[in-house]
């Protein structure tokens, strides 16, 4: 019988207990996959949105809130004058509930600005001008709001008309209500105010060059902060909070998994005391006994990790299909996350096996005689 076979047989002795332990650790790993995948997915989707719109730098006051605080629209002119900046587009972005819907992004864009250019019309048309009382809806927003072209939609106190449904190429864009900046400023009483400036720099600029432009913008615009598009969402306190919550919740679930595996392995050591002592009596070294226990716990971790990834993926898919959530999540279920999760799971298995393995190494051959 080979050493790996002994490890596998060790786990198969108590299949129900092994199965339950494996299920426990897999739930922890499923939490890692689901929570971290969803939060990373939001970041990925945000960045895809930035790339789709060819945005290099975002100037805003994004801090602890979900949306940035408004500032004077004249800031845009100062940003546009910074060397290296080739184009700018002013926006007023709000996160609010519209009619009967949950919270949605209402994204008001400077009429004629480049942030309109990438939108592909799925049905209807774009607004005719900056003052037409009209909006276009991202595909997901249209589904969420149950609106089609020609329907009325109320934004604050104004009833507007849905004139088009668009594909913005990214989750965030497709989940947004889009209208002209002038209209939104008038509706919300924010004339002359914006809260985001999208900035483009010379095509082909390196990350270092983009950073230099950010620094130059920050020197002339102290009331807002310029960040490269990739850094923007990651610097949001709200996003960092969500990320921290995801990892901390996952950590708790993983700790429960550790305790479950440790309990199982300790029980194994106690129940197989006689067997371990006999193995020592026939010449097994203590290190080999420890390796056997660690091998069993690592195998539990590996299997638990694989099952956990499967449960996590299925769970996310199931949540993704729920009414009210459909289309709002774009989880990042990448191989990198799976590998990370399984590695964590194996680490959990090894960690959980350390104490039982140490206990097993303290046994002596003579204990076998005590029954």
């Amino acid at each position, binding site marked *: 019988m080979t050493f790996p076979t002994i490890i596998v047989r060790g786990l198969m002795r108590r299949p129900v207990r092994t199965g339950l332990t494996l299920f426990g650790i897999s739930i922890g790993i499923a939490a890692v996959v689901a929570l971290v995948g969803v939060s990373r997915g939001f970041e990925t989707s945000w960045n895809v949105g930035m790339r789709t719109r060819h945005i290099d730098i975002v100037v805003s006051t994004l801090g602890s809130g979900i949306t940035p605080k408004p500032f004077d629209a004249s800031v845009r002119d100062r940003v546009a004058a910074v060397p290296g900046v080739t184009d700018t587009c002013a926006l007023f972005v709000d996160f609010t*509930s519209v*009619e009967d819907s949950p919270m949605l992004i209402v994204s008001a864009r400077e009429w004629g600005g480049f942030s309109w250019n990438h939108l592909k019309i799925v049905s209807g048309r774009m607004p005719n001008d900056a003052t037409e009382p009209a909006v276009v809806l991202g595909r997901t927003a249209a589904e969420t709001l149950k609106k089609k072209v020609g329907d009325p939609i*109320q934004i604050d*106190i104004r*009833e507007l008309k849905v004139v088009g449904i668009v594909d913005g190429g990214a989750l965030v864009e497709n989940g947004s209500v889009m209208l002209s900046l002038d209209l939104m400023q008038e509706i*919300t*009483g924010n*004339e002359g105010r914006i809260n985001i400036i999208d900035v483009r720099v010379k095509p082909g600029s390196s990350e270092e060059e983009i950073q230099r432009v950010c620094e130059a913008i920050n020197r002339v615009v102290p009331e807002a902060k310029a960040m490269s598009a990739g850094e923007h969402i990651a610097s949001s306190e709200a996003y960092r909070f969500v990320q921290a919550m995801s990892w901390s919740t996952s950590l708790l679930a993983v700790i429960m998994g550790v305790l479950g595996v440790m309990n199982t392995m300790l029980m194994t050591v106690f129940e197989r005391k006689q067997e371990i002592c006999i193995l020592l009596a026939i010449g097994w070294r203590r290190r080999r006994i420890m390796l056997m226990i660690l091998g069993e716990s690592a195998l539990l971790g590996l299997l638990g990790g694989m099952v956990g990834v499967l449960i996590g993926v299925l769970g996310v898919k199931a949540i993704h299909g729920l009414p009210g959530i459909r289309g709002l999540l774009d989880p990042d279920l990448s191989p990198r996350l799976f590998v990370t999760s399984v590695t964590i799971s194996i680490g959990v298995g090894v960690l959980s096996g350390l104490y039982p393995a140490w206990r097993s190494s303290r046994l002596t051959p003579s204990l076998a005689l005590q029954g």
Partner: protein
Amino acid sequence: MKNRLSTAFACACVASFSLADDTAMSASQLAARLNALQQDGNSHVRLKMEIHAAARESLQLQIKQRRTSSGTDIVYQILWPKERAGESVLLRKSPGDAARGTLFVPPNTLRAIEPAQLKEPLFGSDLCYADVIDNFFAWDQQAIVGSEVVDRTTCQILESRPGRGERSPYAVVRSWIDTRRLVPLRIEKYSSAGKLMRRIETTRVVSDDGRHLPANLTVTSPQRASSTEIDGSRLRRGVAYTDRDFTPEGLKELATPRAGAD
């Protein structure tokens, strides 16, 4: 007591400076600080109200409020659904006087709200007019009657009773105050018979410029077996109002106030 919105958002408005020595605060000091937070001048709130009764009803509302030490003026207006858009309530209260108000239902119905009518529900929700305009933190009798953990936060239970000069449908209001953030996480209002009339739970607290505000609230009325969820989506302080905005004539106009300094 202050309605949730008021408490949450107004409180949010008022918001929080953190208290280093919160444990040492007396009931009157705690109430005074919460009351001071309410006097935050002009603000504008946008929120969604979902009423769960025999049928479910969603409303989009705006609140215009002007709160100073010399009085409080509040306007609640329905923005959506279209059939109810424009329904508005104006409530006013000066220190020492009973609250009064006006209800406007488009196109032309104006009705006075007398002090005896302050128990009536606001737009059919679980809040009544008194919940919106009363400020129980300003009442004379304040006592800390214990502490309890609410949502993993240790809260001081502040018991407020109206003084002789105060008129309120409630005889006792208990509020569970997170003294670190100066946010009520739960409010219970009792009748003179000791019956629980209203419970308001804070379900989400947000931070805005270092101030903490209850953003989402759930209001339940044991007597009605219904509940109302309030989700705040926008709060602006320092907006510009005119006196006309807080008159019965002003109620007839549905307009968003202009931005002031945020």
